């Protein structure tokens, strides 16, 4: 392989207009030399701007580098030049899947399958996307307050659930019952530290058999509760709570 | 001492029925309780022993109505008459605005009356209250009994009323003299309040 790279590099040096930049950049990409691969591919694209394969190559390199937006741009250019370019369809199918746009991902993967019916990679990806689309509508990933992930609960000062879910071990929903019982906890915590001259409270940690809880106050009189099993180390709970509190603040700001 | 609330225009006075055991203090309150319209009175509280003797006190709150723009309330208390209850008598007497001394008119209770009247003066003195300044009314109860058993009001007057306070003959069981007595004491207490000689106020 390294022999190929040397040979192709020499060829490209002696003839800058050669199409040998295509196998060279691909070889560099596979070896993980992404910067070198990118330089070679960019050179090729500027010399052959109408060559769809060159744009497809650029898309692969940029995707590997994590430059999602630029990769998408490169593959889109490739498809504009050559709508039946399988690599570009597969690339865009993958990017759209990562971004959560399952419908668009499905369209690209189906196009790829039509062009190359025995592409096992594309087939596996298509199955995964179809499976996800068949499931009931799921909330946006990473937003624990819209009801998805259990074990995080946000409660207002009047004992009402603002967001999140808290489940009992039998799977029944304890959110509303807990919210009602937790109303006033932040007021009581504040009163306790005020009367004992301890400044401002910032976290309340609770250990029960089989479940540990942390509570914080993302906003005045709003209580965030995080419940985790004993497998989560005690010291990690405050960190998780801090993160959830930040998310809760952002989420409430978004709600207005 | 009566409590006067200028903001809410309210006056509350404490009136105590004093006298020897079984002279009819509780009967006075029971009669009043039975005759005053329900809206004007509270529950009558009686702390009595099994044999109906007053153990600690009887208590009856009354709403007199509006006087000079003040909602006026009376708290009627009785003290236990038996000699050995002096500690409780002193407690009930605390802060009294006026006293009705209920004497037992029966001749055989003459000494008990004197002893109790003496005891009243001692207990007031102990609280730093001058007997002469405290509104007091005398009631000669059980005047309905056969004449050979009771002393006349005049006899009792000679023995007890050396300060010439208002006095009334009564039959508390049947109500005669009960309201006259209370009315007279109410007037004395409120007149004193009107003169600004007593009352804790804002």
């Amino acid at each position, binding site marked *: 392989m390294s022999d190929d790279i040397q040979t192709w590099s020499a060829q490209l040096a002696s003839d800058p207009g050669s199409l040998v930049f295509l196998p060279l950049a691909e070889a560099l990409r596979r070896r993980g030399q992404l910067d070198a691969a990118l330089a070679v591919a960019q050179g090729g694209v500027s010399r052959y701007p109408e060559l769809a394969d060159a744009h497809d190559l650029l898309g692969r390199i940029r995707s590997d580098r994590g430059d999602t937006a630029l990769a998408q741009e490169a593959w889109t250019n490739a498809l504009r030049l050559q709508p039946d370019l399988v690599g570009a369809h597969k690339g865009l199918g993958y990017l759209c899947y990562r971004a959560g746009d399952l419908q668009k991902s499905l369209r690209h993967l189906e196009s790829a399958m039509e062009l190359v019916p025995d592409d096992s990679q594309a087939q596996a990806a298509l199955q995964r996307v179809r499976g996800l689309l068949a499931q009931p509508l799921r909330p946006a990933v990473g937003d624990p307050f819209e009801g998805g992930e259990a074990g995080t609960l946000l409660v207002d000062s009047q004992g009402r659930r603002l967001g999140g879910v808290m489940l009992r071990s039998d799977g029944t929903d304890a959110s509303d019952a807990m919210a009602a019982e937790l109303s006033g906890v932040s007021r009581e915590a504040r009163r306790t530290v005020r009367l004992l001259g301890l400044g401002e409270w910032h976290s309340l940690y609770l250990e029960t058999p089989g479940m540990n809880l942390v509570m914080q106050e993302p906003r005045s009189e709003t209580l965030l509760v995080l419940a985790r099993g004993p497998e989560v180390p005690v010291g990690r709970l405050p960190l998780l709570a801090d993160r959830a509190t930040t998310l809760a603040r952002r989420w409430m700001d978004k709600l207005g | *001492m009566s409590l006067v609330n200028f903001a809410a225009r309210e006056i509350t006075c404490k009136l105590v029925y004093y006298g020897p055991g079984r002279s009819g203090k509780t009967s006075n309150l029971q009669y009043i309780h039975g005759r005053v319209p329900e809206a004007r009175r509270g*529950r009558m*509280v009686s702390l009595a022993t099994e044999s109906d003797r007053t153990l600690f006190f009887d208590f009856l*709150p009354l709403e007199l109505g509006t006087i*000079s723009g*003040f909602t006026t309330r009376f*708290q009627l*208390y009785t003290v236990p008459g038996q000699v050995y209850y002096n500690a409780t008598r002193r407690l009930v007497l605390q802060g009294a605005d006026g006293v009705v001394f209920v004497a037992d008119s029966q001749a055989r209770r003459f000494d008990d009356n004197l002893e109790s009247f003496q005891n009243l003066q001692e207990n007031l003195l102990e609280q730093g209250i001058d007997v002469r300044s405290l509104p007091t009314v005398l009631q000669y109860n059980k005047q309905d009994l056969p004449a050979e058993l009771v002393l006349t009001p005049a006899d009792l007057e000679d023995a007890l009323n050396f300060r010439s306070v208002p006095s009334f003959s009564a039959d508390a069981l049947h109500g005669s003299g009960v309201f006259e007595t209370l009315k007279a004491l109410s007037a004395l207490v409120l007149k004193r309040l009107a003169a600004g000689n007593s009352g804790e*106020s804002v």
Partner: protein
Amino acid sequence: MRAIEPWVEGPLTTFLTESSARLVLLMTSAGQVIAQHGFTRSLDVMAAAALGAGIVASTGELAKLLGPSPFGALVHQGTNQAVFLAPFTTPRGRWIGLVVYGKETSLGLIQLFFNRMVEDLSQSAPVEHARRAVLAENFEHELNASLRALFGR
């Protein structure tokens, strides 16, 4: 909440919110009501005050009989509610607090915030001013009318 003297209202309100007490009665040691919260009829308040003052007075006497140190607060724990009864000193003399509370709070909290209220009351008590005549000159006519109305004669 009702208070005979306005300066009592602040400390009492704080006590009520902090302690979650159900009923509160402040009275003089003679059983005269100073302030109350939670009672429905003013006449019931008087009976409660008379009884509360009586209990404090009699336990005080009992303490005198039994030993050198006086009793502090008196607590009676019932199944659903409890009664807390405590005498205290104010610049206006000896007063008594009667507090009825339930399971939503505890004796410790009642005691804690009661002590704070006593401090607050001491600080906010105004200097006593001269007594003044309470009733108008012509009150006698009204008194007689009231007595007639009350006693029906």
